[in-house]
């Protein structure tokens, strides 16, 4: 696609997003337009466009290798897109990386916090990196909120998976982000702990107006937590909609059944329902 066409398409995609918001002043927590990532001949992500509104929890679903983590890495600024546009709270990530990333945060099972620092030291370190004012009060509040007070002087490396997840989530909300990216945040938790985490995250969206992009392979969790889901396969968005209505709309009994069908036969599954 010629460059001028792409630029026009990106502008058009963003304008469409802006129109849906009505207010004109409040930006979406995340706006992604025609995002692409290619490695030589391999297309990892192709023309992905979506938005996450404030207070909305959006599930990013797809089989392994679908492009979920690649998409998240591009939004986190640790992977440059080959093309496309990412705006966090209306700030262009490519143009104002530091300012845009100050509005976001993340937690992922594969990105544990440094194990050689204690819980409190880790929070203090990241609070400074995010430039948080009155950090002592903020850290105390988070230690209490995530039930970490008794672990404040424990090195993160010796914590259980569940405790590490709680610390990662406390770090993820340190800067009161407008956009929170969670890559399988409950993957290593027992059902009770996972339930608590889901409730807390749901609260972040509803009470604090944080936009959340959530990846998970747990379809029950997705139905419970997400307002909207995006099905990604082979780097493209195949389906988008309400996780509670999508299965019926596409002739599947459950979200899990739909997921399996899309993962195995992505094109025919979509064509069958169109």
């Amino acid at each position, binding site marked *: 696609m010629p460059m001028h066409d792409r630029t026009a398409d990106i502008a058009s995609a963003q304008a469409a997003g802006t129109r849906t918001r009505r207010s004109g002043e409040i930006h979406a927590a995340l706006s992604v337009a025609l995002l692409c990532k290619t490695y030589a001949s391999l297309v990892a992500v192709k023309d992905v466009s979506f938005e996450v509104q404030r207070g909305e929890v959006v599930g990013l679903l797809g089989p392994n290798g679908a492009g979920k983590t690649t998409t998240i890495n591009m939004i986190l600024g*640790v*992977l440059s897109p080959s093309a496309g546009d990412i705006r966090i709270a209306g700030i262009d990530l490519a143009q104002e990386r*530091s300012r845009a990333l100050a509005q976001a945060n*993340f937690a992922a099972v*594969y990105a544990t916090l440094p194990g*050689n620092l204690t819980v409190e030291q880790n929070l203090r*370190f*990241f609070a400074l990196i995010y430039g948080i004012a009155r950090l002592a009060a903020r850290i105390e509040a988070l230690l209490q909120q995530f039930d970490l007070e008794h672990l404040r002087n424990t090195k993160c490396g010796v914590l259980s998976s569940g405790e590490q997840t709680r610390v990662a989530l406390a770090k993820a909300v340190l800067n009161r982000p407008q956009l929170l990216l969670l890559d399988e945040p409950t993957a290593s938790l027992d059902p009770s702990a996972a339930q608590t985490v889901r409730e807390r995250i749901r609260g972040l969206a509803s009470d604090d107006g944080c936009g959340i992009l959530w990846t998970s392979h747990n379809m029950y969790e997705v139905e419970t937590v997400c307002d909207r889901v995006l099905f990604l396969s082979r780097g493209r968005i195949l389906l988008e909609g309400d996780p509670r209505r999508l299965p019926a709309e596409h002739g599947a009994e459950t979200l899990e059944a739909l997921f399996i069908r899309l993962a195995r036969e992505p094109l025919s599954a979509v064509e069958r329902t169109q």
Partner: protein
Amino acid sequence: MKLRPIAGILLRQFYLIRGSPVRALPMFAWVAIDIVVWGFITRYLNTMSAGRFNYVPSLLGAVLLWDFFTRIMQGVSTAFLEDVWSRNFLNLFATPLTTPEYITGLVISSIGTSAIGLAVMLVLATVVFGLSFFSLGAMLLPFLLVLFCFGIALGILASALVLRLGPASEWLVWPLPALISPFVGVFYPLATLPRWMQLIAKGLPPAYVFQGMRAILAGHALPAAALLPGAAFALLDVALAGYFFVRVFRYALRTGLLARYSAESVS
């Protein structure tokens, strides 16, 4: 550049050193051992020369300056390697932290750790072996500054190489000072070297420092003009190393190296 993120990098280093004797000890233990070993060697050589030549300033002084330079370089690269060892790149670089803020944090933490090493070396060399470095007074400062700048440049270069080549390449960057040591004439005049080595030495700032120090110890005035090219090269090297790091960082962003680093999938 914002101060808080830089303070964050410094605080992290402080926490790591405070809570870990294995990090605190090498800041002064190895340089102290170096000074002791070379101190006794110079004493022995002084005995052999029967007072005709004082080896203390020329050999022990050279060891002190060289160790200062290597500590600066290792201070920067070790602070960077902490993020490699703790698989912290994804957490760190998905934040508002900018590359200049990160590098500044590494450099300032290196100043702190190498200052401790320098103090230990000066005290030991002066008190135990009678090295009268303090008598050089302010004349010492330009030499230390040139070595400091080149140490910073080499530390940033080493960090960039590890970022580009993967965690295992730390074994490649530790011996970088040893690689350049034959060319810079730490213990011998540059005239001792063959012509091709002298040509390489002309581009290495420490060569000017050690030549200048030998001139001072021989009773000459501060060779400011002779040290200037060394200072210019050192500043240029800092700029080049910074540029190289930024280029490698951008490469790591483009290829996904940075995102994969945390999973140690790069070797």
